[in-house]
């Protein structure tokens, strides 16, 4: 099966391992991720302002291309996923903006949110299935205690993202358990790490990230997994003394296509 794939700017640079192990692992399940041609950066954060049209164009171009190829669009980065999924929702539900954007794109067919958007985790759950993943595990995690860190962008706004229960998500915990690990539930797993405030207020990012790290450790986590390069950066930068890794690295390790992820 072939699916369209939007890697995003960070996955081509600082977060290469988030990208590489996503592609390699999906091949094992018979899924080839076909990169969108000439994709453009999603912008990192979704603008909710109704008069902010130009910031939606990159997402719409990617969505439209996937739809025209008859493929669902897969993302891995939490931020790209959030921006693209919210933009798709807007195109479906706000005809005035869809028409404005059509005048920018101007290629003869108006896009109105028809593409299906999957985060890679949703692809694992809904297309591959966690039972299939369990069967392919060759290096089980032997009960390692792992805290899933969702942060903000995968889950909220929940009426649009519809990935999981926004206050009690299970999708990453189910993945951890399929890989043979023990998932650790902790209160701050869906709270903010500080995000882009790290650029101008390291202090606020430190406060927010420390709350996440301390909370996860107190609950017994020996490792944290995330789908977001900025969450990972903030947690590591602010002194996490347990490893913070991408969920795709852990997946690839358990599937036997990557060495130990502890470093």
């Amino acid at each position, binding site marked *: 099966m072939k699916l369209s794939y939007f890697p995003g700017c960070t996955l081509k640079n600082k977060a290469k391992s988030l990208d590489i192990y996503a592609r390699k692992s999906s091949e094992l399940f018979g899924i080839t991720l076909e990169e969108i041609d000439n994709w453009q950066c999603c912008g990192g954060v979704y603008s909710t302002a109704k008069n902010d049209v130009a910031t939606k164009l990159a997402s719409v171009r990617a969505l439209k291309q996937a739809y025209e190829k008859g493929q669902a669009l897969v993302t891995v980065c939490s931020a790209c996923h959030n921006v693209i999924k919210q933009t798709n929702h807007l195109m479906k539900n706000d005809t005035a903006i869809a028409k404005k954007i059509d005048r920018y794109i101007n290629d003869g067919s108006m896009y109105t949110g028809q593409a299906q958007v999957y985060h890679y985790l949703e692809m694992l759950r809904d297309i591959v299935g966690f039972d299939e993943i369990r069967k392919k595990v060759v290096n089980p995690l032997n009960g390692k205690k792992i805290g899933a860190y969702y942060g903000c962008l995968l889950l909220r706004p929940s009426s649009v993202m519809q990935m999981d229960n926004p206050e009690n998500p299970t999708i990453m915990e189910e993945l951890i358990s399929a890989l043979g690990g023990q998932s650790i539930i902790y209160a701050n797993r869906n709270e903010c790490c500080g995000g882009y405030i790290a650029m101008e207020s390291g202090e606020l990012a430190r406060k927010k990230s420390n709350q996440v790290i301390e909370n996860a450790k107190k609950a017994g986590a020996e490792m944290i997994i995330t789908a977001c*390069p900025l969450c990972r950066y903030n947690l590591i930068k602010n002194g996490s003394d347990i490893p913070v890794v991408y969920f795709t690295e852990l997946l690839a390790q358990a599937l036997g296509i990557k060495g130990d992820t502890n470093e």
Partner: protein
Amino acid sequence: MNKAYPTEELLRISGVNPNKCMKCGKCSATCPAYDEMEYHPHQFVSMVNSGDIEPLMNSESIFKCLSCFACVDRCPRGVEPAKLIEAVRIAVVRKQGNNHLLADDVPNMLDDEIPQQAIVSAFRKYSK
């Protein structure tokens, strides 16, 4: 000094109806940037509603929102305060000379590990 933007414009840009607010304070209680803000999410809702917009437009609070959507998701009345903060911020940074982050500022904010995502996100929120 930024002059007040018309209330009805902010409501249109944000899509927010502040009259739905029942003043429970949950938005501010769940806000990760609460301690850093002069005006908190619930105050954005009540001040825009009463036309008290100039103080909001001249407060650093508009740059403290982390776009985490916690107040959007957890509001029991669907008011979605972050959308109002976004509308005020956009009304401010769109004015000539009002960019909060300049390209020349960026090199001093970087280290070897900072992801591109942080830079593009900050630009999208702080500059036009």
